């Protein structure tokens, strides 16, 4: 499926190991690959550049939320009509992109979340428990139910991306996006995806301590907004 003005946004922090693979595979669907190097200390910047991505460099690490927002702004100024965000750690196979953007291309949704919980699949126990917990927290705080509120694989149409106003710096951005979907009355659809869990990608996501930090940040977000 060739879609005009599709941009793929990949926030990356020390992802030199996998980012090349992610970019190469995403390239099959679009030429507009945007990588946000979020103050990496490794070769992320060089590798992303070498693989043909357009790279924006954060001088210091600002976290997932900060990088994602930079990427979406960059895609919008590149006149993107559809924006796909995907994790740089290789847990999302870019071949899911056509399925992900289909509801947007067909005009049936403004935002699509690739959910890991719509089909049965093996997932480490900690994730299996942690993700529903954050779905519940997101629902209690912001009033929207998603089967995978923490998924990093998402698609937005231009209207949705323009309306997205996130302030979160870190992982709590995922829940904040859900909140934005509600406050701007965007149409949300979820499509089933398979996540590729490797020892590497597991080491990059949320464990107990980052999970707790995310929880605290979400509470602060709720209280100060």
């Amino acid at each position, binding site marked *: 499926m060739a879609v005009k003005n599709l941009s793929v946004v990949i926030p990356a922090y020390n992802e030199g190991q996998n980012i090349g693979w992610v970019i190469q595979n995403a390239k099959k669907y679009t030429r507009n690959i945007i990588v*946000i190097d979020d103050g990496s200390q490794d070769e992320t*910047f060089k590798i992303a*550049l*070498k693989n*043909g*991505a*357009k*790279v*924006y*460099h*954060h*001088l*210091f690490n*600002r976290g997932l939320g*900060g990088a994602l*927002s*930079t990427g979406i*702004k*960059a895609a919008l*100024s590149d006149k993107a009509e559809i924006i796909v965000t995907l994790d740089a750690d290789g847990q999302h196979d870019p071949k899911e992109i056509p399925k992900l953007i289909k509801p947007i291309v067909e005009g049936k949704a403004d935002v699509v979340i690739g959910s890991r919980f719509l089909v049965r699949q093996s997932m480490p126990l900690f994730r299996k428990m942690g993700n529903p917990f954050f779905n519940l927290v997101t629902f209690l705080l912001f009033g929207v139910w998603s089967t995978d509120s923490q998924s990093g694989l998402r698609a937005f149409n231009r209207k949705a991306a323009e309306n997205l106003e996130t*302030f979160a*710096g870190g992982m709590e951005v995922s829940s904040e996006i859900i909140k934005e979907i509600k406050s701007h009355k965007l149409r949300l659809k979820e499509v089933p995806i398979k996540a590729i869990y490797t020892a590497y990608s597991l080491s990059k996501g949320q464990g107990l301590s980052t999970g707790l930090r995310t929880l605290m940040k979400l509470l*602060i977000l709720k209280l*100060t907004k």
Partner: protein
Amino acid sequence: MALNMTIIQFSIVFLAILMMVKTVLDFRKNKVTLPIFLFWMILWLAIIIVAVLPQVTGLLDKLLSGENRGLDAIVYFSIFFIFYIIFKIIAKLERIEREITEIIRHLALKNPKKK
């Protein structure tokens, strides 16, 4: 009466005066704004008064309940106040974090790299 001060009273007064001197110096170096300066000065002064004349807490008793609970009220109020300050600091920190992100984003967007 001042001569009958206990060691604890004496150290509280000594530390409070020290903090007041530091606050004055900070204020003169423009490190703190006038409202903050006044706030700390009044706070330290109040601490000195309570330390030297614990009887003044009796005034609070009359104001609050009539019972002998003035010191308790001060402790409750202090804890509440500390939580309030912590919350304010967290909120401020959060705002500063966002502002830093804005600056970093601004710089990044101005300068895309492509081979």
